């Protein structure tokens, strides 16, 4: 709904931006436009309307700005022009973020709600005095300054629903350059860049393209995998929402390189805004002759279709995804043939991830050498990560490959929330593993992560502190994969179920002797014998937590959860020294387990306690442990 309303003003905004795009491109990207810049004196208000922003209420903020500016007699047309729709800039923890370019300077506000708008307009726009207490502080800059943004550079800066904004910052130049080269040259450039698939497995992209190019068939397909399903991952969504044309451009270049005329973007239906923006982008690209027949008069024909997924996690697996596009049940296909030989409808097919495609125009434009300047020798370029969990600055970050976990979590992420200590980082979602805090100096690249039993995955990072139980965390991930297993192969279908059952009984204090070894045995066998990547990586969270946190598993076997997270193992006791005899605990206890009389210390009956934790929450003196 909100998005629809906005599109009414979109064409106007678009054309105006186009007129200014040539000169404003630099100033838009920089934080401080030079004095005398032609945009100086204008008023531009940028509000994050990515999914995170919208969820935090950015549409209301936009409406409030529009209303407020009109009410204040600031010309309505200026107000309309000022309210730009920009994509995600990654700092979701502080949404709604509002950036105001006014009289040559830029200020960034964080955590803005509609009720704050009036004061900003009054003080900042009318009186030229920014509201200092709402400005983004050190954290915002620490979050941004340590990042290396090449993919996300334009996200949050340009209007994702305006192709001219993308063209204004050099968009589609990579495609032009690619079309002036031979397919072979394009593939060689991508190979030389060292780009590896960002979907998780890290297969060299150029090599994949070469296999498909050489397949010798007339009909081929190229697919973009935007079925981002890892819990805690939203990199691809943000890229598409913030800069959809960069993905399209990468796909068109890829399509040219492998020699196909047709491509698909497989995107999960849970991403309505991303889908809408892709639809707009495809339409605009067709309108400019960047998709369709004879692209840019090169004689190359190429078009794209969007296929919406129906919410199955396994459809992120390449062969299951292709079956889903074919209209069949999304289930992995046995790998009798590589998909570069027989993929979609048994035709040679290239499938890459959203982020992989977004890298391609940059590589073609700036050259492989430039690209190799980022990252490590074997993992080149940058990687986008989604930082979530018990971390202060959760959000989307882009860093060069090889940055250490510590830098990402402590410097960019701002460390932990509250006073709790960092315990582990779960990378790669349900396919990855838990990396303990002692490995903070581990460089994050494909090979280093694999060396500690985790994987890059698509780039989700869930930060865990010492209030999180590792057994419980492993249980969460295996219950996810068990639920999402397609049921085709035995180890994944039944093996993950048995592991879940064992973990469940351990967290309930009913673990049996030998359970930990049984978990390792089943886990290793499921990894070895499963058909597809889902099953082959499903035990990773369990195996890595046992590897690094075995003592926590053993503690559960002894009936104790060190993190205090497993409800069944919790035991509430009253610290009589801290008890002030207020009786609040007795009043909230649903099972009458608290023995308390006025002016007596409270006590808890173990047999009556149902471990609901109500007394723990209610005690104002932290006397219940």
């Amino acid at each position: 709904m909100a998005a629809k309303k906005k599109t009414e003003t979109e064409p106007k905004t678009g054309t105006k931006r186009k007129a200014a795009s040539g000169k404003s491109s630099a100033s838009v990207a920089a934080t401080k436009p030079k004095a005398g810049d032609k945009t100086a004196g204008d008023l531009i208000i940028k509000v994050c309307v990515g999914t995170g922003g919208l969820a935090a209420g950015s549409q209301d903020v936009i409406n409030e700005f529009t209303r407020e500016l009109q009410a204040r007699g600031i010309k309505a047309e200026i107000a309309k022009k000022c309210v730009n729709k920009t994509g995600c800039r990654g700092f979701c923890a502080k949404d709604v973020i509002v950036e105001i370019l006014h009289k040559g300077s830029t200020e960034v506000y964080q955590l803005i709600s509609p009720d704050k708008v009036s004061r900003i307009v009054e003080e900042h726009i009318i009186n030229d005095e920014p509201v200092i207490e709402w400005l983004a502080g050190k954290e915002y800059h620490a979050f941004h300054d340590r990042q290396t943004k090449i993919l996300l550079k334009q996200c949050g800066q340009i209007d994702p629903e305006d192709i001219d904004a993308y063209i204004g910052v050099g968009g589609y130049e990579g495609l032009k350059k690619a079309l002036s080269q031979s397919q072979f040259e394009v593939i060689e450039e991508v190979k030389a860049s060292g780009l590896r698939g960002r979907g998780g497995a890290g297969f060299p992209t150029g090599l994949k393209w070469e296999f498909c190019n050489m397949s010798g068939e007339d009909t081929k397909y190229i697919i973009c995998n935007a079925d981002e399903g890892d819990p805690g991952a939203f990199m691809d969504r943000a890229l598409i929402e913030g800069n959809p044309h960069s993905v399209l451009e990468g796909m068109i270049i890829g399509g040219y390189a492998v020699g196909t005329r047709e491509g698909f973007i497989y995107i999960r239906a849970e991403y309505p805004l991303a889908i809408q923006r892709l639809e707009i982008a495809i339409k605009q690209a067709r309108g400019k002759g960047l998709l369709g027949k004879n692209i840019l008069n090169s004689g190359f024909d190429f078009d794209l279709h969007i296929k919406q997924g129906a919410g199955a996690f396994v459809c992120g697996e390449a062969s299951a995804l292709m079956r889903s596009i074919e209209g069949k049940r999304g289930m992995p296909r046995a790998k009798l043939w590589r998909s570069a030989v027989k993929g979609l409808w048994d035709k040679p097919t290239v499938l890459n991830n959203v982020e992989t495609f977004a890298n391609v125009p940059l590589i073609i434009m700036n050259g492989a050498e430039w690209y190799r300047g980022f990252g490590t020798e074997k993992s080149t370029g940058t990687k986008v990560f989604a930082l979530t969990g018990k971390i202060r600055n959760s959000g989307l970050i882009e860093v060069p490959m090889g940055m250490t976990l510590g830098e990402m979590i402590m410097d960019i992420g701002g460390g932990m929330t509250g006073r709790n200590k960092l315990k582990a980082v779960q990378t790669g979602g349900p396919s990855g593993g838990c990396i303990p805090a002692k490995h903070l100096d581990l460089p994050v690249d494909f090979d280093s992560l694999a060396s500690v039993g985790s994987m890059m995955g698509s780039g989700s990072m869930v930060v865990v502190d010492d209030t999180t139980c590792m057994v419980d965390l492993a249980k969460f991930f295996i219950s996810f994969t068990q639920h999402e297993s397609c049921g085709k192969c035995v180890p994944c279908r039944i093996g993950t179920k048995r592991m879940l059952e064992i973990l469940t009984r351990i967290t309930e204090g009913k673990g049996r002797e030998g359970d930990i070894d049984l978990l390792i045995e089943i886990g290793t066998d499921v990894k070895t014998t499963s058909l597809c990547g889902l099953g082959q990586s499903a035990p990773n969270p369990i195996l890595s937590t046992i590897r690094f946190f075995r003592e926590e598993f053993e503690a559960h076997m002894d009936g104790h959860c060190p993190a205090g997270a497993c409800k069944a193992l919790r035991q509430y006791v009253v610290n009589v020294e801290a008890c002030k005899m207020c009786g609040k605990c007795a009043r909230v206890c649903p099972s009458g387990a608290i023995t308390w009389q006025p002016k007596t210390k409270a006590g808890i009956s173990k047999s009556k306690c149902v471990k609901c934790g109500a007394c723990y929450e209610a005690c104002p003196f932290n006397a219940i442990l």
Partner: protein
Amino acid sequence: MSDKKLKITINGKKALCGKDETILDAAKKAGVRIPTLCYDERLEPYGGCRLCIVKVKDVHKPQPACTTRVKDGMEVFTETEEVRRLRKNILTLLLSNHPNDCMTCEATGNCGLQSLAYEYKVDGKRFAGETWDLPIRDDNPFIVFEPNKCILCGRCVRICNDVVMAGTIELTGRGFDSLPDTAFGKPRSLENCEFCGQCVSTCPTGALLDKKGMGKGRPYELTKVKTTCSYCGTGCNFFLNVRDGKVVKVTSDYDAPVNQGNLCIKGRYGYDFIHSSERITAPIIKKDGKYVEATWDEALDLIAKRFAEILAKHGPSSLGAFSSARCTNEENYLLSKLVRTVFKSNNVDCCARV
């Protein structure tokens, strides 16, 4: 190019194979048995049961034989300690969600899972956990589905969709609760099912059963008689399963050149007429308004005599013949010969001429 043979070894023995062959194909030709549950010659390789995993030299993980193509120089080992251990664990997982009621199970003696459990000496106890407790689907005259015995090998689904092209069943659900089922779990009926019983024929366990043959005898109590279907001219072969002189069910003959084990509803379930009390077993001649049983000689003499009379009195065009699609090409040929050369008529046709 295509007939260039690849040289591989299986358990140390040399074997020659074509380049598109799988390890399983090659092993079969070489007479090496690799255990499978989801494999059916009539279907595309599936790779679901994972029991056919074998060790391939210089490949770090065991490879499924049914979905790995041979490469020149490949060294395959089908019975290493590691692959046997893995197969054992996979079987244990399967049996951990299986009723293991072989004493009363219809499929006993004809069950892939039972044979492998016997061979590998496993039960499901080590990985015991939740087991399915789903109701038996006995909602139609031909096919009984006992979901608790299903091992999700997908053979029924594939034969229904890829061979019969009926699309009656598909895998539904996810994870542990995946199950082959009809759309919306509706009972099988003529609306959604052809009742060809192909799914029953391919089921490796007792999950899908021929209702008509249930309780009529164990496989070793039945005599298998190979025959050709009498319903149409296709000439499908199958086995009549006979006990005490009675046909109790029909099973597939996978070596049949015409139908390779595939059958339709008539061939598989249309055998009631054999022992029907209303079946006509001798020629009948109408005498004085009443039907009277006769001998073949008597009947044929009568037919020949009457045809000759009609021919003499009314000429060749007064006679003709219309043949049945149930006849073979040879029978149709002979009939047309009779009409054209003996009757000297061109009035001959067959209902299969469309």
